[in-house]
């Protein structure tokens, strides 16, 4: 039999010495009924909304319905050992999860218990999973970018620190891939990441964790997983747990990014819990507070000002703003964005990245629909150079879409139309990007600059991808200084333009692709 590291005699001795054995008065009730993980408890006069209720066998439940003579609660985890007549007692605590930097690199369930087999979690602090979002006075507007490393997103739908940007699309359109790429790209940006998997296959979660490890992204990432096999209650609370873990960084003047994958399944889980608690069903059988379910969660993603951080840390961290950026994911059925939950979440968030299966199947990946994707606040946060160069890319694509439909019928096209069509085709091609290969600001700038300045016009459409990668390789080996400068400052001026032009001319003259 093996000993745990926590079983050293000295440790045990000190814990016994410091063991707090205060006698507490608490209220106790009796389980009246138990069905599908829903408990009805008689008694418990002092219970609070959302309080943890202790049950036999080290099991906990969360009080959700406080009625006159009974309390409706959901069991967290298995309930096979519970039965009618069991005693249930109040704990006086709202559901809490561990927080702290020690969680980075770990995989946890919705209650903060480690499930990656790497031993206990190194964390001394806990925080309640439900917290009120920062108020108006405590906030600061979004003005710093989160670089996702994806050209199409950073150029056309930029995401700022503290923004909520929805990723929406049908199944199999690359929603998770976009989010994972964004996490991988935070390796050197100092942004901590939280990935919350809700109602997914455990194998999918394991794959994602492996991919993150392969790309060295696990070191700055916390994974919270409530897989499809776990109870609806766990799936319902998982995003809140993840959000609390992310808020730890926000409140201490750091930047964090949280991905909710996906909120559709959380809404399903909450619908199940609500219906079992016999709350009245509304549209699509969702309960009346389904909007609040998501709005209170996404409201917690925010950018807070330096005063808030200073006050929160009791003056330990000064002059630093904090942020929590959220990338919620919503899965639509057959592209129907006007269903109940998608419209709700679209209205809550600061923009959406719309992924389409038609584009995906046509090989345009990430399959971003440039017309329907918007970012309402990200523009203010975009890097100067990408903002300048990205504008014309967006325009070129918009013009191309308009003309492409029309041009199918017309055989005789004038010179300008033809050039717009060919530019559009090449830009569409240029926006393709492989998975797990995020680009730096400078690389992106070169690609966009190349399209804007017409360097691609004489390149065959099918060669655009090869041309780009050859160009980037060439520039990286010959113009390292310029790249470093763009990456560092992100500014755009005549000098840099001239430098980029010279580098590209050089590549066109000498390069092979």
């Amino acid at each position, binding site marked *: 039999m093996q000993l745990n590291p926590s079983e050293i005699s000295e440790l045990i001795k000190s*814990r016994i010495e410091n063991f707090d054995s205060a006698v507490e008065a608490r209220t106790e009730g009796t389980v009246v009924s138990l069905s599908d993980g829903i408990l009805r408890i008689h008694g418990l006069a002092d219970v609070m909304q959302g309080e943890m209720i202790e049950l036999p066998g080290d099991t906990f439940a969360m009080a959700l319905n406080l009625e006159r003579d009974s309390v409706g609660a959901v069991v967290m985890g298995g309930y096979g050992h519970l039965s009618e007549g069991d005693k249930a007692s109040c704990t006086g605590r709202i559901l809490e999860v561990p927080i702290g930097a020690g969680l980075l690199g770990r995989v946890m369930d919705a209650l903060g218990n480690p499930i990656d087999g790497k031993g206990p979690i190194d964390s001394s602090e806990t925080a309640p999973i439900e917290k009120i979002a920062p108020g108006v006075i405590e906030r600061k507007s979004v003005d710093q970018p989160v670089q996702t490393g994806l050209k199409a997103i950073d150029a056309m739908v930029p995401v700022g620190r503290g923004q909520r940007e929805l990723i929406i699309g049908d199944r199999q359109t690359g929603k998770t891939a976009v989010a994972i790429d964004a996490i991988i790209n935070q390796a050197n940006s100092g942004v901590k990441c939280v990935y919350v998997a809700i109602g997914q296959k455990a194998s999918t979660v394991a794959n994602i964790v492996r991919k993150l490890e392969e790309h060295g992204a696990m070191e700055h990432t916390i994974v919270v997983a409530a897989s499809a096999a776990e109870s609806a209650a766990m799936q319902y609370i998982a995003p809140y747990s993840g959000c609390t873990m992310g808020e730890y960084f926000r409140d201490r003047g750091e930047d964090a990014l949280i991905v909710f994958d996906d909120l559709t399944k959380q809404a399903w889980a909450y619908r199940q819990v609500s219906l079992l608690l016999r709350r009245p069903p509304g549209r699509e059988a969702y309960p009346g507070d389904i909007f609040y379910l998501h709005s209170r969660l996404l409201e917690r993603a925010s950018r807070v000002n330096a005063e808030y951080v200073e006050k929160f840390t009791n003056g330990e961290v000064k002059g630093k703003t904090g942020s929590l950026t959220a990338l919620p994911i919503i899965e639509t059925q057959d592209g129907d964005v006007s269903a109940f939950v998608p419209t709700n979440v679209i209205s809550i968030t600061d923009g959406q990245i719309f992924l389409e299966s038609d584009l995906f199947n046509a090989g345009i990946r990430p399959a971003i629909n440039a017309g329907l994707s918007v970012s309402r606040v990200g523009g203010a946060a975009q890097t100067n150079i990408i903002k300048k160069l990205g504008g014309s890319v967006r325009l070129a694509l918009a013009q191309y879409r308009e003309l492409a439909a029309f041009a199918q019928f017309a055989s005789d096209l004038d010179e300008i139309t033809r050039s717009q069509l060919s530019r559009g085709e090449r830009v569409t091609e240029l926006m393709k990007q492989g998975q797990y290969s995020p680009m730096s600001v400078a690389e992106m700038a070169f690609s966009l600059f190349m399209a804007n300045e017409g360097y691609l016009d004489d390149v065959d459409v099918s060669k655009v991808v090869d041309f780009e990668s050859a160009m980037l390789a060439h520039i990286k080996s010959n113009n390292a200084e310029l790249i470093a400068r763009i990456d560092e400052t992100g500014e755009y001026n005549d000098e840099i333009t001239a430098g980029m032009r010279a580098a590209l001319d050089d590549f066109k003259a000498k390069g092979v692709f």
Partner: protein
Amino acid sequence: MADYTTVARPYARAVYQQATETSSVDSWGQALALMTAVANDAQMQALLDSPQLGHEQKAELMLKVLADKLTPQQQNLVKLIAENDRLKILPEIAEQYEAFRAEAEGKIDAEVISAFPLSKEQEATIVAMLKEKLHREVSISSTIDASLIGGVVIKAGDTIIDGSMKSQLKSLALALGR
């Protein structure tokens, strides 16, 4: 039992108000206890559950057994409850009636469970402490449960004060296992 709480409450409250207005709290208390005893009788229960009898017949049956012991108002209560087909909740009504009474009189029953028999002084200390904590007149009943190892567990209504060795060992085990 717990399912009937909500249904029984209006009856218990009405009875208690009636009793205080006519200053017959004791008499009503006895009457309700009597009704409960009758309703809980196995033979009686079989009859009360029988679908063949109408509610008038059930009320008559109850009253035949109890007739000479009840005042006209108390007889009316039986009829009313029978009419609403709620004879089953009589025990719950009686219980809640007693709760209202205890509340109004500032009394509470506490159950003290200990590992060893308590001395008179110990009981007196517990009563005095509970009185201070709950702001009520406390009457205690003691039981012995050797599995507690040591200490006492006090149950007063929903409130549990668990000062037993058993629960402290349990939380120590939990703290060490963490």
